[in-house]
């Protein structure tokens, strides 16, 4: 049913996923769970209404440490570490110096004064290491994301320290004598905590989390959740030829920090000239899922294309992110070409689904 290539990497939780009867798929060089027995939609709704746990060990961890670590990251990545401090996390971009394209979008966990865990997307780890050096410690740990409005309540049963970490804060904690790191981050649009646990302790940590009544969720739900929350996925909303400004992520770019960042000149040129396209949200009237690559038309003329699309389990209709001409604004009525059929869509405000409370 799924294609498996010989070189696929396995998470420390691989055996646990097999035991839970997960459907495994190749993703970014890893073999990871797509869904478990309940299926993607049930897992999605459980995250919106209650709590789920994801194995996101395929995210890279590049540890950059030492006296020069902060200066190196500050002059390379787009966001401003001056806005945060040790014990905090920050979303940031690594740009192509030549054209300002997003080479990767990254979460930086500022673990301790001179210790940074830089977390790239699975397949971009080498690219990020080429820019910031550091040690690839990905295979030494698992990362378990506990997400949903009840995430902290359940995680507190396993570790009260991890469960208490603030939004975009980072805390070191010990679990069964093992040194772990927790961050108040995630990729679902819900509250939650991501825990980095040493590989050998990871299966028992995962089991302890599930034992509190947390259901596991796979990459399928992770994708529909992040889409509803309008969170970008590298290779779709970000990537070669796509800048942070086109993706509507200007807030990730610090123009004022004196250290600058890779790609600043190119990005400044785009800022001054104005973007050639921008990211918008589209909603269909029916259930048919828009798919990435689908042409977006206005009065029969092509104005852009879908970067990600799917069925929204919360809204009960199709939603999509699309890169379109800058003159296409909210409320516009457009057409998608889906498998030879014309499907009407409206440009709607993002995110599609907002966090409650």
């Amino acid at each position, binding site marked *: 049913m799924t294609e498996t290539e010989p070189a696929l990497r396995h998470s420390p939780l691989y055996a646990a996923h097999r035991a839970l009867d997960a459907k495994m798929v190749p993703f970014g060089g890893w073999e990871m769970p797509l869904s478990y027995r309940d299926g*993607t939609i049930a897992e999605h709704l459980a995250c919106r209404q209650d709590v789920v746990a994801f194995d996101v060990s395929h995210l890279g961890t590049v540890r950059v440490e030492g006296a020069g670590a902060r200066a190196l990251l500050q002059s390379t990545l787009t966001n401003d570490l001056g806005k945060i401090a040790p014990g905090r996390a920050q979303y940031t971009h690594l740009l192509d110096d030549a054209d300002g394209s997003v080479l990767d979008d990254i979460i930086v966990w500022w673990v301790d004064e001179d210790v940074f865990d830089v977390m790239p997307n699975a397949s971009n780890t080498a690219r990020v290491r080429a820019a910031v050096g550091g040690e690839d410690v990905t295979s030494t740990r698992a990362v378990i994301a506990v997400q949903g409005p009840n995430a902290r309540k359940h995680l507190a049963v396993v570790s009260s320290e991890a469960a208490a970490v603030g939004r975009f804060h980072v805390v070191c904690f010990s679990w069964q004598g093992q040194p772990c790191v927790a961050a108040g981050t995630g990729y679902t649009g819900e509250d939650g905590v991501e825990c980095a646990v040493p590989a050998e302790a990871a299966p028992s940590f995962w089991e302890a989390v599930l034992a509190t009544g947390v259901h596991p969720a796979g990459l399928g739900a992770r994708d529909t959740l992040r889409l509803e929350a309008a969170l970008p996925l590298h290779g779709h909303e970000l990537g070669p030829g796509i800048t942070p400004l086109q993706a509507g992520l200007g807030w990730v770019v610090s123009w004022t920090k004196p250290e600058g960042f890779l790609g600043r000149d190119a990005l400044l040129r785009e800022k001054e000239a104005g973007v050639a396209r921008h990211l918008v949200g589209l909603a269909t009237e029916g259930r048919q*899922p828009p*798919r990435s690559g689908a042409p977006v038309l206005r009065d029969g003329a092509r104005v852009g294309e879908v970067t990600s699309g799917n069925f929204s389990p919360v809204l009960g209709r199709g939603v999509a992110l699309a890169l379109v001409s800058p003159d296409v604004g909210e409320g516009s009525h457009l057409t998608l070409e889906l498998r030879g059929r014309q499907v009407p869509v409206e440009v709607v405000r993002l995110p599609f689904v907002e966090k409650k409370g």
Partner: protein
Amino acid sequence: MNVPEDLRYTADHEWARLEGGQVRIGITDYAQDALGDVVFVQLPEPGKGVKAGESFAEVESTKSVSDVYAPVDGTVVEINADLGDAPQRLNDDPYGEGWICVIRPDDTGALSSLLDADGYRKLTES
């Protein structure tokens, strides 16, 4: 994997049941499991002529889109309109409430050229 003995199957994972000169069609348990949660079904128009092996409907899950191929030549006489609001019936009950349409075949004998349960089981296990 559930493969009822009384049905006929295609190598493309459709099932066909002869019901008094007409053929009811759906996708198999194996197919629904491989697709994952079905969120949309593009049904054919009643009255549409179909050719064996040609796509006449589409089933979309959160993961992918899949064509549904006609098992025999014929004409669509009935569609399962309930799938419009409840496409998950394809997952919950692929051989029952998740049926897709009924075809009046040009030749009811054509069904005998399809796989039987044993043949289909072997196909999915290979």
